[in-house]
């Protein structure tokens, strides 16, 4: 394989951005479709090249290809090169990112049809995808940070895509600033690592951590710093607040953010630096605890949301928590396997929500209902994705979630029980959404849409939207089967534990173990409860809500984190508190002193000016007094 191939994977979408911004938008403004085609073409080729790279990596010894570096900048003992790592983790990630992005771009052609910002949309999408692809391939901290921030920029631009809406502009700003808090920790970790090792190269750092040269408090702080970057990007507690608001962007953007790019970047980052975490128990435990806690914390809020995209958003945070938990207790293969499966079913869930919105013009589930008749394809695919995320055998989500549960059972009982409760919550909120949206009778009547189209009656989305959903649905069923024999785990360097068995034995043998059976039972209870409350109405949702009223308020107000961060800390303490005080200090005290010196000088000179009367008698008098005074001084002291 030529060395240029991996470079092209992220450069092609970047070229697409350039072509759209400099050629299509200025000269072909009335042919918006072209932007879509260019983007799909570029990402499509990237996807093909990614598969090629994956095949090469599978065949390569130690699953690794060497790509030559390029010198970027050299100053004294600071030397930064740019280059790519092409190993198993990279290969899996580029395939996931480019494939999911490709599906979303195809779908977007239908969803964004007629939007005045069509060119801009695909330009930003290209940028976003390019940065994520670069991120997963970068071989050193500086180059990785470039894409890391690029992904942040892409999400800022796309969340705020409809910038004329104040809520979208706010959400974009919030996403960028909250993640920047995490980036601050990441940047500090980069500085710390370079100071102690003299290198930015990720593989060299791995080597130093494995050799034990990089150890102790330095390693702990560095790992915590890297993790704080991951916490920001992957919306883990306590920096989770930006992701639910991020749904202000167009829905395919949410699909991309929640599935393959942006939030996956944080989990990927921990996986990329796993040798550092592995040699630092404190950091690894932190990852597991934050992940496990976030999983249940976010799921609890997902229980009560009425906006379908918000349900999915909290579900993403919760699933990302699972991935972190998986990394913390099981390692790279476990965490990334869930990321891999999640990318497909979560992308599909968002595309389904977008499809529903395309028809009904709303995201509020209280205005939906009965859509299974009008939108059969959307219904079936959404149902498959929901079963998958709930962890129902033999769908994709089952396989990766089961691994996480199994590993946390052996590592940490408390986290295991939290994860098990989360399984119940996940099944409940997903099927609550399914039944509210597709079950019962249509309750809506709102006829309006994001782009001003009039949707007179419910209808299935066009083929350009349905086909990607079907493709993702197939993967939501089958992607988990890759690890039935443990081959996915072995590819990602997970040796040992999995004993070799045939596919069929692994596939059905799973049901002979107690743990998978328990988790299946828990998930089924969740689904059944949702059915009882929202479809069969054996239980009144309102009555249940009244019984658990304090919890209901706590969950639906999102534990008051938005208020705490925005009103109390940012506005109350900082902007209107400390910063206001400093601002007054600046204009009154510091600048006041400057003006004070000036006016002091002016008034002193004003006073002294009065001595200059211009009268000779007065001057003569003064001279005489002075002479006498000098004479007296001489007489007395001389």
């Amino acid at each position, binding site marked *: 394989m030529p060395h240029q191939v991996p470079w092209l994977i992220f450069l092609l979408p970047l070229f697409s951005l350039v072509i759209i911004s400099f050629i299509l938008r200025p000269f072909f403004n009335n042919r918006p479709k072209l932007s879509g085609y260019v983007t799909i073409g570029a990402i499509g080729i990237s996807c093909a090249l990614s598969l090629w790279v994956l095949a090469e990596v599978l065949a390569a010894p130690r699953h690794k290809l060497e790509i030559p570096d390029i010198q970027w*900048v050299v*100053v*004294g003992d600071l030397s930064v090169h740019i280059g790519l790592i092409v190993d198993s983790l990279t290969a899996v990630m580029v395939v996931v990112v480019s494939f999911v992005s490709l599906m979303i771009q195809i779908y977007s052609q239908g969803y964004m049809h007629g939007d005045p910002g069509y060119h801009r949309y695909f330009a930003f999408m290209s940028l976003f995808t390019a940065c994520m692809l670069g991120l997963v391939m970068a071989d050193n901290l500086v180059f990785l940070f470039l894409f890391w921030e*690029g992904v942040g920029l892409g999400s800022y631009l796309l969340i705020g895509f409809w910038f004329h809406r104040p809520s979208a502009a706010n959400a974009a700003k919030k996403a960028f600033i909250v993640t920047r808090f995490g980036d601050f920790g990441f940047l500090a970790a980069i*500085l710390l690592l370079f100071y102690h090792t003299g290198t930015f190269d990720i593989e060299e750092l791995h080597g130093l951590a494995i050799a034990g040269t990089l150890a102790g408090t330095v390693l702990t702080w560095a790992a915590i710093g890297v993790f704080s970057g991951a916490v920001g990007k992957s919306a883990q507690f306590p920096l989770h607040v930006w992701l639910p608001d991020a749904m202000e962007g167009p829905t395919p953007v949410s699909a991309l953010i929640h599935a393959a790019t942006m939030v996956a970047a944080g989990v990927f980052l921990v996986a990329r630096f796993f040798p550092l975490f592995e040699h630092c128990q404190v950091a690894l435990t932190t990852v597991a605890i934050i992940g496990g806690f976030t999983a249940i914390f976010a799921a609890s809020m997902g229980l009560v949301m009425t906006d379908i995209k918000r349900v999915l958003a909290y579900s993403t945070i919760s699933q990302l928590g699972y991935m972190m938990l998986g990394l913390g207790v099981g390692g790279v293969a476990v965490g990334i396997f869930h990321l891999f499966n999640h990318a497909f079913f979560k992308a599909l869930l968002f595309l389904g929500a977008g499809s529903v919105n395309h028809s009904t013009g709303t995201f509020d589930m209280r205005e939906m209902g009965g859509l299974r008749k009008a939108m059969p394809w959307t219904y079936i695919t959404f149902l498959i994705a929901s079963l998958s995320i709930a962890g129902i055998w033999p769908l994709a989500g089952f396989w990766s979630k089961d691994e996480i549960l199994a590993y946390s059972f052996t590592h940490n009982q408390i986290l295991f029980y939290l994860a098990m409760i989360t399984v119940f919550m996940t099944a409940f909120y997903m099927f609550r959404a399914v039944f509210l949206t597709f079950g019962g009778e249509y309750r809506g009547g709102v006829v309006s849409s994001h782009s001003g189209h009039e949707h007179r009656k419910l209808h299935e989305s066009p083929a350009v939207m349905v086909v990607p959903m079907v493709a993702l649905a197939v993967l939501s069923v089958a992607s988990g089967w890759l690890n039935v024999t443990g081959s996915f785990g072995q590819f990602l360097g997970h040796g040992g534990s999995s004993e070799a068995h045939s596919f069929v034995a692994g596939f059905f043998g799973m049901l002979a173990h107690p743990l998978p059976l328990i988790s299946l039972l828990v998930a089924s209870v969740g689904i059944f409860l949702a059915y009882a409350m929202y479809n069969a109405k054996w239980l009144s949702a309102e009555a249940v809500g009244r019984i658990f009223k304090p919890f209901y308020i706590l969950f639906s107000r999102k534990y008051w984190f938005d208020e705490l961060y925005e009103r109390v800390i940012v506005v109350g303490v900082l902007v209107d508190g400390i910063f206001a005080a400093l601002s007054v200090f600046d204009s009154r005290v510091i600048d006041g002193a*400057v003006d004070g010196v000036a006016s002091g000088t002016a008034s002193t000179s004003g006073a002294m000016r009065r001595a200059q009367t211009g009268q000779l008698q007065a001057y003569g008098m003064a001279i005489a007094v002075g002479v006498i005074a000098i004479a007296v001084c001489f007489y007395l002291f001389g």
Partner: protein
Amino acid sequence: MEFNYYLTTIIFLPIVGLIVIALLPNPKPKAIKLIALVFTLAAFALSLAVFCLFDRSAGAIGQIQFEEKISWIPAINAFYHLGVDGLSLPLVILMTFLGVLAVLVSWNIQLRPRQYFIWLLLLETSILGVFCSLDLVLFFLFWELELVPMYFLISIWGSGRKEYSAIKYVIYTLVGSAFMLAGILSIYFTAGSLNMMELAGLTVVKPVVPLAAMFLFLLVGFAIKLPVVPVHTWLPDAHTDAPTAASVILAGALLKMGGYGMIRLCVTIFPEVALHYAPLLVALAVVSVLYGAAVTLRQKDLKRLIAYSSVSHMGYVLLGIFALTQVSLTGATLQMFSHGIITGLLFAMVGLVYDKSHERNLDNLGGLARQMPVIAVVFSIAGLASLGLPGTSGFAAEFITFVGSFSSMAVAGIRLYTIIGVFGIVLTAGYILWMLQRVFYGPPLEQFSGVSDANNIEKVCIFSFVAAIMLVGIYPAILTDIINLGIEPITKLIGL
């Protein structure tokens, strides 16, 4: 015969343009602008030629290139002595670049255009002179000369409390200059030389005043110019009330005279004293970064907001300088260049927004992205560069500064200082994004329905800025390879 007067030509090309404008009988405004443009472009082109001819080989480390030396005042051993090295060349290019763009930014000047462009050209000459002078008297002469055009530019073509701001600017700077002059005189009477290169690492047995006093005299002058908190309050007033082109040059090139002076004189001549005072100055740098950012977050006037952000960003320059490592000093120099083009662009953009909408108050702005898409895009790029987004010069410069400062041995606890400084990036993101949202996002407003987007001349101007920002951001080695040549000998003097 070999042509050997590149620097003189670059410095005095604007003066020639100025004379042509002054001597033309009743020139049309258009002719004035074209003349100014031609001469600034010529200076820019020539500085690029110098950049291309500059010797980058290892043998050029610490060498002054394009040197010109003519005896000027033999009685005090003063020379007309020019030259550039890796430290000054980027700043010369920065100034000639901004010179061209300042003319383009001023294309719509209606009030007394002839005088306006005369002052603008004189300003360019004086700043170029500061960066090229290698003789202390000549340096001081150019340093003081700059005050005259700036005073008139602010007080005649400015806005708001323009007379107050202009006077404040001049007096504040003059106070610094007085200290500087005392420093220069004490150096002269101690060493008997005015040659800035010969004075490097000055060691004398019996100085007229302690070396530390000389260092501090010079430092006061430069600290006011940079500026460093707490001697920064002239800056927001001057920047806010100056006309756009003057703000561009003030923030873009003029502040860099302070940073340049600190490296060229304070650190190079008195490396040991610099080492001694480094802890204090690094602490002040971090204060400037955070304090500047905090006050920026409270500004309601668009132009004042950008002005205060300069205080914060120049804190990174001070941090890099007094971390006293090769990497940090290179980062600081790159940060000066980068801040020059980024903040220059930001002021140009504020000028455009104000020209079109006649509004600078953030509370009254909003929704302009619909009416002025090009301006919105370029303003956003400038803002993102300012908040240090990788791929822009802002990131390259700040990152190199951080890496250099973090590994410094000069100051105890500098790692903590650096980390606190790094936190500035979060605050910067806060005010930049808040500002962009206030100006451009939200529903389009009725009162701005008629405003236009940038015209072609404005587009040329702002796209040039963007190109420079991206070029340095993507390939910073284009400058760091040169800066290094000037910085390396200085770090050898410090000897850490």
